[in-house]
């Protein structure tokens, strides 16, 4: 079951740029779909999410743990089975995700949190 997909939900073009960066680094395409909230009210963003997810399962990678991207994603996950949400998306968690998609959405979201957190460091002077 390597068909678990990732949807990146962000302000402006952050999601698009992250998808491009993952493709440039790994050569893997099609695992991630970008969704921007640009110009969207709640209904339009819900529609964009629905179009992007298609028939799940999927993990929604959201930029911030609050705001329109987050509220729409959390609402979507509540209304649909097989959808998990993780916030604070970064490149490290996406790179880990595209190579580990044979798990449930919940497992993938937890794994993403772990991989994403580990990438945040302050380098020694």
């Amino acid at each position, binding site marked *: 079951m390597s068909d678990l997909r990732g949807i990146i939900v962000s302000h402006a073009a952050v999601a698009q740029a992250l998808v491009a960066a993952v493709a440039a680094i790994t050569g893997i395409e099609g695992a991630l779909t970008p969704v921007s909230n640009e110009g969207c*009210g709640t209904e339009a963003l819900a529609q964009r999410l629905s179009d992007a997810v298609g028939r799940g399962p999927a993990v929604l990678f959201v930029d911030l743990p*609050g*705001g329109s991207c987050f509220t729409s994603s959390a609402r979507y996950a*509540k209304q649909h089975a097989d959808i998990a949400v993780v916030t604070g998306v970064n490149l490290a968690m996406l790179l880990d995700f595209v190579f580990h998609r044979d798990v449930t959405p919940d497992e993938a979201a937890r794994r993403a949190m772990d991989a994403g957190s580990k990438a945040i460091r302050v380098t020694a002077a």
Partner: protein
Amino acid sequence: MTLALYRIDDRLIHGQVVVGWGHPLNVTFIVLVDDEVRSSDWEQDLYRMGVPPSIEVRFASVDEAARELSAWEADPRVGILLVGDIDTAVALAERAPQVRRFNVGGVHHRTGRTERLRFVYLSEDEARKLRALAARGVEVTAQDVPTARAVPVGEFT
């Protein structure tokens, strides 16, 4: 200080409100006026997330807001009042004549609406309601972030 901003925004609490307006205005409380959100603990938890602990979030129905408005206006702190649509703004202004202004911050595309500004789409009916609100003495302007120009109601309805 007082309620520094009365805002119509269909995204309700989000980055432009908390960060864009919240920082420069030094906001320490947000009142979200929406009958639906008021009746759902789950929705309230959702909107509370992402708001820093230094900002208090209150939820009110239109009726509750009309009753509490004077107290919020008298609050020594600075706050923002949010509604999600034009009907709620009109309902509140009708019940609470203390409402002197509304900022249209985000009303997005939906069937039946046409583009008025990049962040404002209105049906004819909604445009008429905003003009009527302005005719009653409420200052209605459109402005997404504080650094943008406040567009007078006559320019986008």
